[in-house]
């Protein structure tokens, strides 16, 4: 999974096929999910402490149990989900379309013809920047088009963008 694959795909479409995201994307998602799980756990902890401080309130559960449950549950989710999501993700540059396959629970398969592409954004969240990853957001004239491609190595993202834009043509697609 490197720049060579993309360029060969651009040249003749012979090397096109389903590609996985960059493996480091799993870490990026784990960081995001982990933070969310941490936030929920902290809230649970605060509530737990608050309940424990009120004397009259005698909760039927062991003090600190909710926090523990949230922490374990959150950590498990934050560890497992990104891996599942990563395994479900594939993208493909076919001769005429960009195809995205994703989704663990609800499976999505999006197809965006190159010649409909209006512009392409490359975004990098702090986590992605730390891991050297980028996210490609492909826009068409339809507001409902769903075309986010996460987990692309920084250098490759720009290459990928240029490859797609080169195939876009310059028609007024509206």
């Amino acid at each position, binding site marked *: 999974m490197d720049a060579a694959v993309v360029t060969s795909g651009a040249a003749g479409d012979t090397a096109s096929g389903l590609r996985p995201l960059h493996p480091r994307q799993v870490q990026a998602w784990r960081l995001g999910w982990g933070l969310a799980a941490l936030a929920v756990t902290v809230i649970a902890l605060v509530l737990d402490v608050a309940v424990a401080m009120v004397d009259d309130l005698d909760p039927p559960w062991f003090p600190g149990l909710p926090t523990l449950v949230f922490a374990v549950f959150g950590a498990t989710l934050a560890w497992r989900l990104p891996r599942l999501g990563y395994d479900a993700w594939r993208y493909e540059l076919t001769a005429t379309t960009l195809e995205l396959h994703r989704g663990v629970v609800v499976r999505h*398969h*999006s197809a965006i*013809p190159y010649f409909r592409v209006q512009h392409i954004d490359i975004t990098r969240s702090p986590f992605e920047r730390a891991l050297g990853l980028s996210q490609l957001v492909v826009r068409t004239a*339809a507001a409902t088009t769903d*075309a986010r491609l996460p987990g692309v190595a920084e250098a490759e993202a720009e290459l990928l963008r240029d490859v797609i834009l080169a195939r876009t043509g*310059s*028609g*007024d697609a509206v």
Partner: protein
Amino acid sequence: MPPVSGPPDSGPRRLHPASPFLDLSVLGRQLLGPGAIALGTGGLRVLVVLVVVVLAVQVLAWHRRTYQLGDGVLRVEGGLVVRSQQLVPCERIQQVNLVQKLRHRALGVAVLDVETAGNDSGVRLEVLDIVEAERVRTALLAAKAKGQRPPSGEDGTHREGTDQEGEDDDGRREGPARWVPAPWPVVELNYRQLAVAGMTGVELLVIVALAATASQVAGNLSWSPFSGIDLAALDALGPLMVAGAAVGFLAVWLGTAVAASILTDAGYRLTLVGDELHVVRGLLDRKEASLPLARVQAVRITASAPRRLLGLVSLRIDSAGSGSGDDDRRVSVPILPAADLDRVLALVLSGIAPLPPLQRPPPAARRRAVVHHVVPALAVAAALALVFRPWGVLVLALVPLMAGVGVAAYRGLGHALTPGFLVTRSGSFNRRTVVVPLARVQSARLQASPWQRQAGLATLSVDLAGPGPVPQVLDEAAGVGERLLAATVAEPLRGSAKADPWPERPASEAGKSG
């Protein structure tokens, strides 16, 4: 820029001199705050000064605001403090609307609304003399048609250079004058048809709005219509009176619906002028919309249950410019005999064949439709039955009813893929059919929830540049869905060249190489 029709374009022009005084609502809003302060502090004299100042500002703004059509670009300039300049390349126009409210008709002026793709983009010229407005509209659409046609095929990427290139192009093709074809009537509606439309359409709800307003007014006056009525006396009058009242209410109900329908759509005419659809309608407020055929993004056909019984449908023709639900902008046919549908579609969507019978999704979709309707109903009914014992149990009778609705929803499903078009239908009570030219599909998505996967089903969504809900093929077999996905995003270059009068890509490529 050579004159397209009428007087030549001689530099920037101003709007109609009545413009600054016409929009009373804007004036009122501007005066509301200062007016209240003035009345509070200085009285009438300050108020008069304020009115004069506001009017002066409006007049100055009018003085600054100019429009000019040339080189295939509509240029609108204005602004008192912050100067603005708006350029609309004519080939990018999606739709042109001409709106004449009652006050505009009294003065012989109109609002010209030029729409491009995107939310609230484009310009609004408020107001122009009606003759001038029609001239500008004709000129805009002519310039647009010229820009669209190959081999000139300009596209937005050269917006900067349009001045010179446009000049060049115009020079080359100046020779033959533009042939303005005679209007070809597509649909005309008389009062009887509009009355039927009102009595079977959403206009039936107008009375609810009226009643709400009336009750609010009555509430403000602290007067209740029922306070003087003696129920015992009503009882004495007998069932005859009650029946009479019911008939009276029905008459008022249907009457308001018919009146609402006639108010908005009286004199409805949909015509085809060359490559443009042209709609005129309205009894008091006159509305006209012009939509180039090449800009049609989708045609939505709606048939409610009563209309299906009467063999009637209504149509909505979407362009990427027609904002979501804005009444002034919609291009629609309020009522149409279903037998006439194929004829109208053939005129609006070039290259379309008569609608084929639709393919229904597999039986697994029926189970899903029933479950979808029954489960929420069951949850609500069970809750109600528990709360309102013992009579709440009766609510459970709704559950089989919802199962019936689910079956009806399944019967409403269907799709067809014809050369150049995707047709999809859904809905139980209101059947909604959408005809999408494949040349207008921006992207497509196939999605499958775990339950859908278990039943081997998937739902296809088709993304369009226009407003309105995303057309979907619901619960079709996964294999069929994949095939549809591939077909909808295939490049419409060779396969359905007929469906798309001016295919974008060859046009622009020819333009570049030439």
